[in-house]
């Protein structure tokens, strides 16, 4: 995947207050780079949808600024390069899937022949002449993605695209998003499901109560792996560990074991030193923090886990 450092979405201090005193989004600085699949992660009510609505011009920010695809959100210059599904995809129930996409093609000023291409891409060709009102939730979601693809956008903005889908539908839509993210296209996808984001995204931003709490690749967010050490006598073990990696990198856990921040390549060496100091090593293993742990630490919730 060709990801560039140039942001295709950038916000500076983006803020949205509502009249009843609710701060939905608070000074958000978001940077989505070209070509990446960016996961916008947060528990329900964190401000994800409000942010995405601001990025497509449906909601005006109270303060701050944003640029999407090189132009102000909601401007024709920006919208012509953005494909979006915000919350559930909405179409005209009395029109067929094909006619709904034809309508979108007319609105976007793109050739009608793009309709079949987009329907092919989401595997909806067999049902294209059926009314939208007869579509299942998964088909509606795929039609929404087809509609977003019609204008061959530089960036796709997808708001919780697997919401409400059955397990097979979720798998299908995730696979579709992974495929769409291959190549030059940027995908900004919001979700409260960690596993989903982990599968699809190259970089993640975590939002909680309207504020950004972390941003980075999955590995960056997880941080370095740690070594869990249990040895007797504990005092001898602590002495060795403090001497090897420094006391600031050694943490005594409640169960009497030690969590040691150290390059895992030194595991055998640490083991040898402990044995040489007369300690009996009963446990020595690498521990990697899951994204769930990180998410819970950052947001203090278990939402979507």
């Amino acid at each position, binding site marked *: 995947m060709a990801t560039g450092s140039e942001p295709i979405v950038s916000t500076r201090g983006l803020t949205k207050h509502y009249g009843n005193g609710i701060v939905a989004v608070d000074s958000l600085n978001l940077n989505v780079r070209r070509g990446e699949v960016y996961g916008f992660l947060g528990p329900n009510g964190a401000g994800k949808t409000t942010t995405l609505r601001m990025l497509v011009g*449906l909601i005006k920010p109270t303060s701050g600024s944003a640029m999407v695809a090189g132009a102000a959100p909601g401007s*024709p210059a920006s919208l012509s390069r953005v494909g979006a599904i915000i919350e559930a995809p909405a179409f005209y129930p009395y029109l067929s899937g094909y006619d709904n996409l034809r309508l979108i093609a007319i609105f976007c000023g793109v050739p009608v022949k793009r309709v079949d291409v987009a329907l092919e891409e989401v595997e909806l060709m067999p049902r294209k002449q059926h009314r939208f009102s007869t579509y299942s939730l998964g088909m509606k979601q795929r039609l929404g993605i087809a509609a977003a693809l019609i204008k061959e956008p530089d960036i796709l903005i997808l708001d919780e695209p697997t919401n409400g889908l059955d397990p097979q539908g979720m798998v299908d839509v995730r696979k579709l998003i992974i495929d769409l993210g291959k190549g030059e296209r940027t995908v900004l996808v919001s979700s409260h499901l960690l596993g989903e984001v982990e599968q699809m995204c190259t970089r993640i931003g975590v939002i909680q109560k309207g504020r950004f709490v972390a941003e980075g690749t999955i590995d960056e967010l997880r941080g370095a792996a740690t070594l869990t050490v249990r040895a007797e006598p504990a005092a001898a073990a602590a002495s060795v560990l403090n001497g090897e990696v420094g006391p600031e990198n050694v943490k005594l856990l409640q169960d009497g074991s030690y969590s040691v921040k150290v390059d895992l390549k030194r595991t055998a060496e640490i083991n040898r030193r402990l044995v040489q100091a007369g300690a009996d090593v009963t446990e020595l293993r690498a521990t990697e923090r899951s994204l769930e742990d990180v998410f819970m630490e950052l947001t203090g919730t278990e939402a979507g886990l």
Partner: protein
Amino acid sequence: MRAFLGELFKTVRRPAVWVCVVGLFAVAVTIGYALPWLAETYSPPSAAQGLPQGTTLADFKIALYPINFVRQTLQQWSVLGGVFALILGVLLQGSEYGWGTVKTIYTQRDGRMVMLAGKVGALAVVVLLLVLGLFAVDAASSTGAALLDGKSLDYPDATQILKGIAAMFLIYGFWSLFGLVLATLFRQSAMAIGLGLAYALVVEGLIFGFGGGLLGDWVKKIQEWFPIANTGYLADSFGAITFRRLPAQPGPYADATHAVAVLAAYVVTFVLISALLLRRRDVTS
């Protein structure tokens, strides 16, 4: 142009729009011509009680003949037919909120003002078809009535027919945009149709019917700036139908120029209010 073509594409494919249009045509034929013709043809002589000596219900059939079809159409359907135009305006805008498609259309390419212009353009096309169809249906019905009664097939001249169509287009333009602005204001169809119907059938008539009776002529000075009164002035400006042995009806309180100016002002105001609401409001549905 993209917005207009898109709006037209989805509007002409919507069954509810044609139910509304055909519904008005059906009502125009049955209530406007068939039932009056049957009543005036087959009523017993006692039904003429209260009419001047020598007058029968059959004397009223002149209103059903082709020479009067423009007057008949305008005077009979400026308000009752306007309700159908109001519903069209509500349907085109209110359903976007109901289905959530408002966010779909505003995230494609053009801005909200362009999309509104497209919708108003598509609404104008449907309203024009409604008016043309109504005049065609009434012309055909009046021809049928004349043929059944063996009367002459004299039609109004082309200028009067065209003026009549233009007047009705303005009247229905007012009603349809009234529906559109109500749907925009309430972001739904049900409330907009309810309030629109209440205004069309009750509110203005009640205020001025009650007030006029109690407070005298100055109430008419106020009424002449209200929309339903002006649809009446405009319809009546085509002249009253005169019936044998019945006194001629007085002319309208205000002339056609006044009525056109007031209705046009309402049309422009409704478009501006809709534009302002759409521009300022967040789309959260």
